[in-house]
């Protein structure tokens, strides 16, 4: 005990654990987690510890311990700057060159052109399985992601129930083509249903958004999630209208064109649908691109950056949020029509709540706010799992688990996403420096923004 000014004080010995040991523990835990995630066995209801047991059989256990230790030693050396400085010096030059090349507009246009050409030409050389993956998984979800990007990336609204509009669009198509138990007012060709579904979803988006968009970001998220749940309940329970759990009673017909001498009928073949999808996608991307660089896009950015200042300068914030919401919803509906027609059979199980969250993950992963990023991210996260599944590296049920892990990892290490918009990167950097707020999530400090 020491004495200060006559009063005894006790100096408390710090009881902190050595951070290096904490890091070792962290690596071991991470290793265990990865091992658990990658083991191919799956738990059963009776033997709950089956998987854990299988994951850590004798050799695996030793392998885990050794791997953990090795990684720990390497990272500690890196931290101590023995290895780190060397590697960083070598890679800095490469990174600078990369940024110089990637920054040039010409090289970006060239890359874009290359991707478009590849998208048109390559799929013919893929096997039937992969063609199907491209259409059923990649194309649909890329379109969905581009739509959600408007809501989340440009207007900054967290929508956790986006796929509800997808379902509405799909069922609208089923309704108007006579695939539901209810006879429609008039039967339409799926092409004609496209604008109808767009309008229906636009209205649905406005109806949902009008009372809820003035809520704070987190509340909006839960409410949209609730909306999806409610739509699901409706689809499952209203048997006489929607066919309940069984879904459509007759298959939804494929697209057909019978116009101006052109007669074409889409069939089960994947490739024609691929071209239909990417044609739609191209139109949507062009329109949205124009939107992004227009008054509307700039107003969205203003609302995202500083809602109070935007309102003070004449931007009707709620109207623009509604606009983004409605545009996103109609895009989702568009995708729904294409999806229903392509698959032929839809039922409520095609639109689970997890799907909403997955699409959100694709958008975030790719880089929200950037059309290219979102396309790249969603394409990757839909195509790769299908490949891994086919190669039996990963089971289908485990894919959401990996998506969740990827999401958390991305947020920790690269929150701006894969290919971020420059503005977004700037916003995040400014936020970390304490300036501005990077999204429309917080309470307006000076009261309402109207």
């Amino acid at each position, binding site marked *: 005990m020491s004495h200060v000014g006559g009063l005894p004080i006790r100096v408390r010995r710090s009881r902190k654990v050595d951070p290096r040991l904490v890091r070792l523990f962290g690596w071991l835990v991470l290793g265990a987690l990865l091992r658990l995630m990658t083991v191919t066995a799956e738990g059963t209801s009776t033997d709950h510890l089956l998987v854990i047991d299988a994951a850590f059989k004798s050799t695996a256990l030793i392998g885990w311990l050794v791997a953990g230790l090795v990684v720990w030693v390497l990272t500690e050396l890196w931290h101590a700057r023995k290895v780190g400085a060397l590697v960083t010096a070598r890679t800095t030059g490469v990174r600078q060159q990369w940024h110089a090349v990637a920054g040039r507009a010409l090289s970006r246009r060239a890359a874009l052109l290359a991707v478009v050409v590849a998208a048109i030409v390559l799929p013919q050389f893929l096997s039937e399985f992969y063609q199907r993956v491209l259409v059923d998984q990649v194309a649909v979800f890329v379109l969905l992601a581009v739509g959600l990007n408007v809501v989340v990336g440009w207007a900054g609204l967290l929508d956790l129930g986006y796929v509800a509009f997808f379902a509405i669009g799909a069922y609208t198509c089923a309704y108007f083509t006579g695939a539901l138990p209810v006879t429609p007012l008039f039967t339409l060709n799926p092409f004609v249903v496209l604008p109808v579904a767009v309008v229906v979803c636009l209205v649905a988006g406005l109806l949902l958004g009008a009372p809820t968009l003035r809520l704070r970001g987190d509340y909006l998220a839960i409410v949209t999630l609730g909306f999806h749940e409610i739509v699901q309940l409706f689809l499952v329970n209203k048997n006489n209208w929607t066919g309940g759990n069984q879904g459509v009673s007759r298959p939804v017909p494929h697209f057909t064109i019978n116009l101006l001498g052109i007669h074409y009928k889409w069939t089960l073949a994947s490739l024609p649908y691929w071209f239909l999808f990417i044609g739609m996608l191209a139109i949507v991307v062009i329109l949205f691109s124009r939107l992004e660089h227009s*008054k509307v896009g700039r107003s969205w950015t203003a609302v995202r950056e500083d809602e109070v200042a935007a309102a*003070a300068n004449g931007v009707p914030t709620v109207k623009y949020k509604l606009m983004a919401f409605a545009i996103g919803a109609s895009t989702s509906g568009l995708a729904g029509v294409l999806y229903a027609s392509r698959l032929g059979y839809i039922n409520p199980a095609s639109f689970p709540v997890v799907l909403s969250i997955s699409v959100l993950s694709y958008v975030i992963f790719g880089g929200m706010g950037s059309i290219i990023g979102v396309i790249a991210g969603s394409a990757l996260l839909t195509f790769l799992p299908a490949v891994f599944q086919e190669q039996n590296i990963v089971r289908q049920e485990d894919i959401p688990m990996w998506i969740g892990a990827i999401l958390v990892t991305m947020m920790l290490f690269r929150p701006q996403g894969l290919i971020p918009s420059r503005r977004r990167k700037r916003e995040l950097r400014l936020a970390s420096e304490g300036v501005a707020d990077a999204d429309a999530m917080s309470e307006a400090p000076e009261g*309402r923004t109207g």
Partner: protein
Amino acid sequence: MSAPTTATPVPQPAAPAKPLLAVRDVTLRFGGLTSLDHVDLTVDRGAILAVIGPNGAGKTSLFNCLTGVYTPQLGTIEFTADGTTTQLVTGSARRRRSRKPHVVNRIGVARTFQNIRLFAALSAFDNVKIAAETRHRTGPVGAMLGLPNARANDAKTDALTEELLDFVALRSVADEVASSLSYGVQRRLEIARALATSPSLLLLDEPAAGTNPTEKRELERLIRRINTERGVTVLLIEHDMRLVMSVADEVTVLNFGKVIARGRPAQVQRDPAVVEAYLGTADE
């Protein structure tokens, strides 16, 4: 005090027409705290009026009431531009509502903020352009299809933005990201942005705060130019007395939410109530 009808003009010695802004008996309370206490204020068209007072006197709260951020429990705020008078606070005695901030802006009131609120990650040009284009009616359809109307509007706002940047002498930094600009430049940019909404009344909230003497002199010139060249009436909150003396036609002094003095700058400066508010009395 009962709400006046629109037909009754506010008695004003100098101007026979209705004043641009008539604030009458405005009271704002937050729970137990009274932020504004039966405040009366009149702003004549073409004038430069300053509101001063110690910190916490309610000046920014007044601005917030004027722009619809807060709703005063009592009182009326009347804005008259182009012959039409609008009540900025509506509703019955029990359910009062103020017009939303963007509506107030459309009517003709623009403002800057005490702690600058620019769109930090955007360029100076875009900051001003966003404000300018709130005035035309291009919607999503026009934007997506690239309709000629939309393109014409865009060209017009580009021109207006350039003109405003020239006006505040910031053309050279038009493409710089707003957060990278110096403090004084940011203040000028915020003013340019507010002007882009073609206001009749400009509310400046401590425009000179944190600026150096040279910038303050430039600001004085700018405020006068805004008033004379662009015909915008200015209401400003300010602590810098030199600035106030230099630009203001009339000064209103607030303390603890009450108006304690009003008049020409020189008069107010000598008013004992004002001196006491700022410095306290000698025998405290």
